[in-house]
């Protein structure tokens, strides 16, 4: 049985700068892996390399056993990679429902079916009462949920969440954590870049720590947090 996602020896270079160096990661269905590290550690770049938005110079990415490292982002999405963006970008000028309708069309060519699926995704994230509202009118917490609904509407098997929790107030955070847990329970493999340690410790069985593009630690959250190299990376990053 192939694993949900297997990335091996990913290296990304911008000009002479090595942004991600020789990083591997793997996870199974229902598993949540956290990706942490100080700012500029290469988390987002690795994320982009896995989802196809950045070009990896070396390395392979397998989705349920088939290689996708040469595929563009949209083709990876079609094969079951869903993602959110760190800076959430709803399609301006469209309503909340229409925003989710667009990814829903990926699995349903018929408008009525796609609309039902989009509505379903909105219900999942608790936005169904906002369906006809212009998306630009949503507040931050609701934009995050819209972003998630958009990612869910492609019916992903592997989901990439980019700082989904950032800036949420405690009740919203709690709600979101519970929600991500239920997604994993429904059988989706999740990779998350996250700064909010509460979310990381509550959700992830496994954490990968990046610093200067290198993987410096890998393991359960508590164990990794106590790793001196990790502590040093964070402190070192802090006084830069």
């Amino acid at each position: 049985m192939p694993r949900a996602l297997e990335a091996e020896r990913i290296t990304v270079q911008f000009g002479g700068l090595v942004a991600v160096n020789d990083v591997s990661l793997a996870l199974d269905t229902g598993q949540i892996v956290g990706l942490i590290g100080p700012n500029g550690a290469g988390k987002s770049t690795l994320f982009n390399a896995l989802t196809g938005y950045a070009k990896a110079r070396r390395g392979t990415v397998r989705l349920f056993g088939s290689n996708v490292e040469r595929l563009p982002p949209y083709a990876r999405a079609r094969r079951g990679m869903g993602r959110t963006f760190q800076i959430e970008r709803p399609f301006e000028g469209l309503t909340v429902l229409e925003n989710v309708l667009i990814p829903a069309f990926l699995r349903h060519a018929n408008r009525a079916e796609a609309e039902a699926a989009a509505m379903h995704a909105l219900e999942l994230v608790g936005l169904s009462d906002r369906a006809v509202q212009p998306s630009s009118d949503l507040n931050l917490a609701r934009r995050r949920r819209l972003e998630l609904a958009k990612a869910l509407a492609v019916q992903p098997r592997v989901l990439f969440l980019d700082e989904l929790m950032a800036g949420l107030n405690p009740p919203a955070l709690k709600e979101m954590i519970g929600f991500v847990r239920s997604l994993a329970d429904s059988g989706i493999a999740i990779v998350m870049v996250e700064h909010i340690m509460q979310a990381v410790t509550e959700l992830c069985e496994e954490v990968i720590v990046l610093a200067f593009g290198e993987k410096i630690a890998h393991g359960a959250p508590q164990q990794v947090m106590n790793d001196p190299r990790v502590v040093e990376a964070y402190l070192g990053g802090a006084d830069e």
Partner: protein
Amino acid sequence: MTGSPDRGPDAGAGPPPAAPSAAPGPASRALTPWLERGGAPWLGLAGVAAAGAAWYVVFPSSLSLGIGLLLLAGWASAWDLLGGWTGQTSLGHAAFVGLGAYVVGVTATKYGLAPWWSVLLAMALAAVLAFLWGRITFGLRGSYFVLSSIAVAEILRLIAINERKLTGGAIGLFIFDLDRPFGLDLFSRHTEFWLALGYLLLVLATTLLVTRGKLGYQMRAVREDEASAQAAGINPVSVKSLAFMLSAALTALGGCIYGIFLSALQPQPLFELHLSVRIALVAIIGGRGTLFGPLIGAAMLTLAGELFRNAFAEANLLIYGLLIVIVVLFVPRGLMGELRRRAVRRRYAKSAGG
């Protein structure tokens, strides 16, 4: 050409679906739900048809002006599929107008092809050209598409001038004879007027159908944010190419009618930048990405042109230049876009308040 009333709900081009209507009057009980479910634009289309028919009756001696207006509105609406709904500004759509006109001209005069075959051929060629052109430019980041659009139209103009054997060169091509489909005299201004009106309605109906379906939403997604669109499984290059091919084919169709209308084709007026710019500006001033914006823009600028002819005509594009600067600075969505934005706000405010 009237719409089926059981179209799916839509909020992009019509009123939003779910908002329960406040208090339908007893007489409009049947009509209101249909309008709410997206029938309104179809009603608008019927209004355009009626206005066209009214023009025919009221100004029977100004059919040429009407034909010019209808064709410009049709081209601008076709342009808008790419320029407005998909967000790819083209300043080369004259290429397709010229292509349409020349295909009719060349096939009619050299090969005696019946006009309906010429029209199909023209549309197919336009779509192929758009496809290849999109291949070269849609994968590039930045303003390369708009730059290339001018270049391609220029190249076609130079080909039309230099390949004399095919196009008659600078002296041009004269259409003296055409088959009469269903006994219609295609050279009569009366026939041409109805053809032009039908053409505009066809473009508007296509726009309405496309923008309410999958492709239409993909086009808007690509316009708003290509990275997000890719996350939704959309291939931006192929969506842009599809929109471009559709836009090109429809523009070429209008070009065919224009070619018959002129029946003397020369490269200069047909392929020139001037025409491309006019098509784009009419759509932008009227409101990009709105169903009736390009039509409103064409009507306004044509009528303003007629009115201010003596005041401005020495520099007849001056008014376009001033208007576009004003629109960009103060009404960036265009006239219809601004009206629609206000209407959506008001409606939402009402439904949220009530």
